[in-house]
């Protein structure tokens, strides 16, 4: 049934057959297969259609460098596009589909693009589809976008879980081929903490793909034994299916572990992927090398593969990809493929591009020849071979194995800015001198191309990195390999370099003709190397060709930079658990549960959830609730959770003097048991934040901040303490979380509080005057602090209790007749009282702008912001200053953000007199009211102006009024 499966050999488990489907057809493979190897075993060669020309394609490779065999696995919300069939592990029930075709894979209607290839070369969209201009956006671009492309997203939310985790080790070994295994053994046997990361699902790297021996046993067996020893060492962690995709500053490596993509039914609770941040002061990059093809005519047909990949299919997967094979090689390595194919029963012809190659191994051999063209629509059937004399003939071939040499996989060495070095002897780039700190490179990744050199190099580098003894390694082949750089067959048509982006040699020649000759320009003009495979099989040949065209060497032509990730990483894996509700932590106030149970709707204020309003009974809209809360508070009593405002406990002998340096006004003169408003400036003289200061003892203050600025104010105060004035004896502790705090306000507040505080507590105006504060005990002995402060303008106290009592206190306040109000009503009432808040403290306004010039005006000692506040520009008399606004028509709505204009003026930047900063509907006044910054400020009281908002289409006549709309004398506060 698996027509191209060899009856013996390979690392697949023939006792574990796995059914799977591709494009609706059901097949069988074995455990140990990839999707590509299983399809090849079943005789399937066609696995995709190319990006631009929709040419039929099959796998070029057997690994992560695959440009062609991109499939979508799974369906519905789990559909995962652009997965490489050559690395997708097979599991029972895997369902995959090909991509980028209209109609079927065999009869893709978009293949008409290939007939138009002369018009669709590199950068065609810069030169064609120009006329008429209007058609570009509406017709041409959508058509081009629809015609080209790879897989499609499902558009549904991702149902899988992902996580981010950290790992620590003495040595991170990247890659488990011969060099990596020896490095891990060296470090592991020496007792070091080792992590061995391998992208594949088995350890061994190339050893699993070769037929030679290591330590006098089959290479794959030696690798399995080494892996078993490592698995048994408690200090070694083997991470399979884990691709190290990037190196970052601070010796951190990013690695993506795929936990469930190979499992039909994953265990519950296991995230689909884990993104590891590996902290490794030392690392061995043993990532091997990638083979490069040769560009010749129609070199992209299904059945044309890299020679090393053919060996992997034959030796590791026991698949025979063809029976009449042509090996086209420019290096000794291609001959290994010829031998392995013959041993598997194929007929082999070797075309060696090097004239001098002297070998007679019994194959039909053409030395100094080239494959120049191929035939076969859905699978290669014939090749055209050119002989050294120039004659050409055709040969039947169902498999072409191509080897242009190998390129070290050195991408990670460049992630921190290092540049590779060209070596002529192997015609390849090797890692440069400036490696990421702590990184060593071993094996083929540094240009060691014999197995023995890889084994020894891995051990030696680990030994050197850790200062331990190198492990004595097994015997292995050590044949010097010769390679001649042979990038392309000259004059060939449709010779592909980057198969994923459909970039040909002709496109590179076009780039050269048009002046895009630097590597970075060639890349972007032709898009070579810009697909999901990042040009792993295309970059070097393209550089070689550009070098030939410009008459320079490859190092002179340069390379493009390598940046993370080495392999595609889903954004969900980078996000881990930070998504949806858990995008960031949520801070809950002590009254949260009570508020929720009592009809609150919540609003996000930074990380906090605060009750915005409380729905009552049949209230339909939020205005119903908010208007009621304001009315009931100003008519009776209300309470609001103000726990979120920053609370900073300040202690120490120099506490008062320290605060004097932070605030514009003087706090050191505050008597014990009193509170004061505090205004804090930035060093440039602009207002930073405001709050209150309460003096609880001679060397003990409690200052508050706005909710929004709590973190920044604490940071600023700590900066002043530690960096500016470390000689002062002062300590700062954030106690925002320690205390639940409520504002309780309204004419009936004393009746409410009498039921809360211990009997006999003096709340009278004489016993507890306005702006007094102190410790208190509530009924049942609950410890508390009371502050007679008002933000609403009503008679009010703030009560603080240890957070555990916050819920109980909210219940008690409601039970005592206070109405709960949320931040909306809080906002309405402070606007009614003309209190500046965040909208007024917007980073542009000064104390004078806010009408607070007198606050601390007589202060003689220095404070942050004092000098810069005196700059002319900040003292100018025509700066917009705080005023109140009422609409002339009481039914009109004011809008925050609107401009203020003279009634006749045309709306222009030059004529704007200022802006409206805060707006609210005042139930107390029955109209919309606002606070605004107006040139001329309160000197314009009584004037009629125009409130203009071009964005929202508003033009309202307003009157300039006292910003204190309610009780301007403050009688309610002091009663």
């Amino acid at each position: 049934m698996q027509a191209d499966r060899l009856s013996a050999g390979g690392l697949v488990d023939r006792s574990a057959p796995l059914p799977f489907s591709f494009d609706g057809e059901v097949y069988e493979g074995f455990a140990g297969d990839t999707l590509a190897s299983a399809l090849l075993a079943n005789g399937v060669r066609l696995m995709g259609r190319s990006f631009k020309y929709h040419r039929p394609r099959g796998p070029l490779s057997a690994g992560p460098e695959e440009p062609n065999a991109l499939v979508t696995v799974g369906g519905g919300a789990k559909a995962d596009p652009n997965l490489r069939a050559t690395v997708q592990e097979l599991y029972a029930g895997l369902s995959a589909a090909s991509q980028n075709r209209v109609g079927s894979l065999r009869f893709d209607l978009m293949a008409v693009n290939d007939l138009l290839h002369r018009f669709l070369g590199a950068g065609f969209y810069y030169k064609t589809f120009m006329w008429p201009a209007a058609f570009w956006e509406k017709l041409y671009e959508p058509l081009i976008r629809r015609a080209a492309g790879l897989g499609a997203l499902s558009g549904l939310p991702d149902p899988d879980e992902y996580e981010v985790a950290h790992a620590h080790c003495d040595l991170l070994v990247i890659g488990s081929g011969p060099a990596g295994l020896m490095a891990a053994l060296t470090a592991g046997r020496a007792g070091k903490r080792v992590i061995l990361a391998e992208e594949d699902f088995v350890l061994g790297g190339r050893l699993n793909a070769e037929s030679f021996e290591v330590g006098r046993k089959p290479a794959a067996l030696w690798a399995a034994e080494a892996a078993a020893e490592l698995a048994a060492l408690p200090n070694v962690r083997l991470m399979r299916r884990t691709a190290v995709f990037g190196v970052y500053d601070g010796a951190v490596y990013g690695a993506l572990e795929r936990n469930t993509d190979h499992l039909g039914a994953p265990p519950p609770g296991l995230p689909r992927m884990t993104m590891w941040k590996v902290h490794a002061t030392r690392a061995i990059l043993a990532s091997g090398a990638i083979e490069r093809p040769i560009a010749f005519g129609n070199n992209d047909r299904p059945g044309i593969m890299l020679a090393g990949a053919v060996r992997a299919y034959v030796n590791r997967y026991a698949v025979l990809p063809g029976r009449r094979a042509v090996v086209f090689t420019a290096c000794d390595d291609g001959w290994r493929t010829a031998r392995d194919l013959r041993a598997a029963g194929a007929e082999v012809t070797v075309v060696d591009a090097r004239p001098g190659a002297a070998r007679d191994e019994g194959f039909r051999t053409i030395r100094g020849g080239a494959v120049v063209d191929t035939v076969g629509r859905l699978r290669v059937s014939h090749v055209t071979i050119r002989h050294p004399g120039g004659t050409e003939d055709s040969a039947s071939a169902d498999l072409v194995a191509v080897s242009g040499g190998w390129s070290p996989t050195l991408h990670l060495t460049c992630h921190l800015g290092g540049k590779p070095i060209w070596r002529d002897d192997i015609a390849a780039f090797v890692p440069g001198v400036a490696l990421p700190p702590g990184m060593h490179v071993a094996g083929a990744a540094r240009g060691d191309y014999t197995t023995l050199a890889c084994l020894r190099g891995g051990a030696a580098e680990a030994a050197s990195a850790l200062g331990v003894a190198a492990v004595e390694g097994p015997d292995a082949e050590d044949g010097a390999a010769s390679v001649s750089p042979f990038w392309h067959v000259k004059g060939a048509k449709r010779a592909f370099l980057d198969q994923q982006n459909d970039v040909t040699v002709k496109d590179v020649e076009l780039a050269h003709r048009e002046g895009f000759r630097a590597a970075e320009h060639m890349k972007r003009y032709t898009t070579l190397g810009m697909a999901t495979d990042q040009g792993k099989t295309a970059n070097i040949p393209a550089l070689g060709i550009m070098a030939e065209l410009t008459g320079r060497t490859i190092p002179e032509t340069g390379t493009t930079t390598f940046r993370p990730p080495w392999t595609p990483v889903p954004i969900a894996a980078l996000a881990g658990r930070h998504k949806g509700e858990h995008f960031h932590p949520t801070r809950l106030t002590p009254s949260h549960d009570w508020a929720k149970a009592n009809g609150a709707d919540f609003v996000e204020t930074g990380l906090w959830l605060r009750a915005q309003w409380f729905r009552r009974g049949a209230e339909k809209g939020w205005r119903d609730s908010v208007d009621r809360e304001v009315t009931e508070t100003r008519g009776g009593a209300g309470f609001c959770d103000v726990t979120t405002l920053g609370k900073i406990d300040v202690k120490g002998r120099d506490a008062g003097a320290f605060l004097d340096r932070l605030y514009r006004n003087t706090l050191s003169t505050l008597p014990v048991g009193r509170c004061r408003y505090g205004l804090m400036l930035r060093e440039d003289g602009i207002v930073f934040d405001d709050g209150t200061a309460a003096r609880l003892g001679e060397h003990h203050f409690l200052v508050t901040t706005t909710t929004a600025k709590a973190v920044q104010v604490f940071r600023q105060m700590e900066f002043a303490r530690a960096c500016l004035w470390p000689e002062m004896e002062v300590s700062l502790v954030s106690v925002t979380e320690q205390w639940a705090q409520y504002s309780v306000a309204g004419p009936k507040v004393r009746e409410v509080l009498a039921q809360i505080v211990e009997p006999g507590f003096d709340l009278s105006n004489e016993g507890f005057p306005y702006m007094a504060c102190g410790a208190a005990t509530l009924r049942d002995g609950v410890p508390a602090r009371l502050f007679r402060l008002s933000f609403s303008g009503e008679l009010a106290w703030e009560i603080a209790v240890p957070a555990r009592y916050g819920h109980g206190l909210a219940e008690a306040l409601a039970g005592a007749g206070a109405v709960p109000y949320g931040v909306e009503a809080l906002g309405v009432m402070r606007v009614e009282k003309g209190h500046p808040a965040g909208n007024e403290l917007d980073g542009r306004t000064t104390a004078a702008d806010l009408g607070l010039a007198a606050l601390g005006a007589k202060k003689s000692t220095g404070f942050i912001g004092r000098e810069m506040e005196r700059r002319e520009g900040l003292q100018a008399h025509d700066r917009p200053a705080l005023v109140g606004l009422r609409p002339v028509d009481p039914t009109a709505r004011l809008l925050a953000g609107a401009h203020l204009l003279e009634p006749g003026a045309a709306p222009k930047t030059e004529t704007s007199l200022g802006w409206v900063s805060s707006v609210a509907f005042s139930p107390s006044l029955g109209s919309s009211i606002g606070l605004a910054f107006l040139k001329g400020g309160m000197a314009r009281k009584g004037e009629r102006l125009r409130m203009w908002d071009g964005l929202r289409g508003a033009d309202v006549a307003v009157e300039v009024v006292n910003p204190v709309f309610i009780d301007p004398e403050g009688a309610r506060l002091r009663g």
Partner: protein
Amino acid sequence: MRIPCPFCGPRMLEEFVYLGDAALMRRPVEGATCDYVFLRDNPAGRHHELWRHEGGCGAWLVVERDVTTHEIFGAALAEARDAG
């Protein structure tokens, strides 16, 4: 990037908050000047800067870093340094 907090040990960048050039520590005794508030040198190389270890001990640190390579040469507690 990792910063070697003298109190907590080397920690990842996410634990820190950046303020600016360490010259900010040298606030003139007579009060802030325009130069102090607004002017900075901006060398393409090693310089001293202020970071706060907000996710850890909360200490302010003076860190010497090469801004072109991110290499960090040391970190000291600001509190312990001479502002001089």
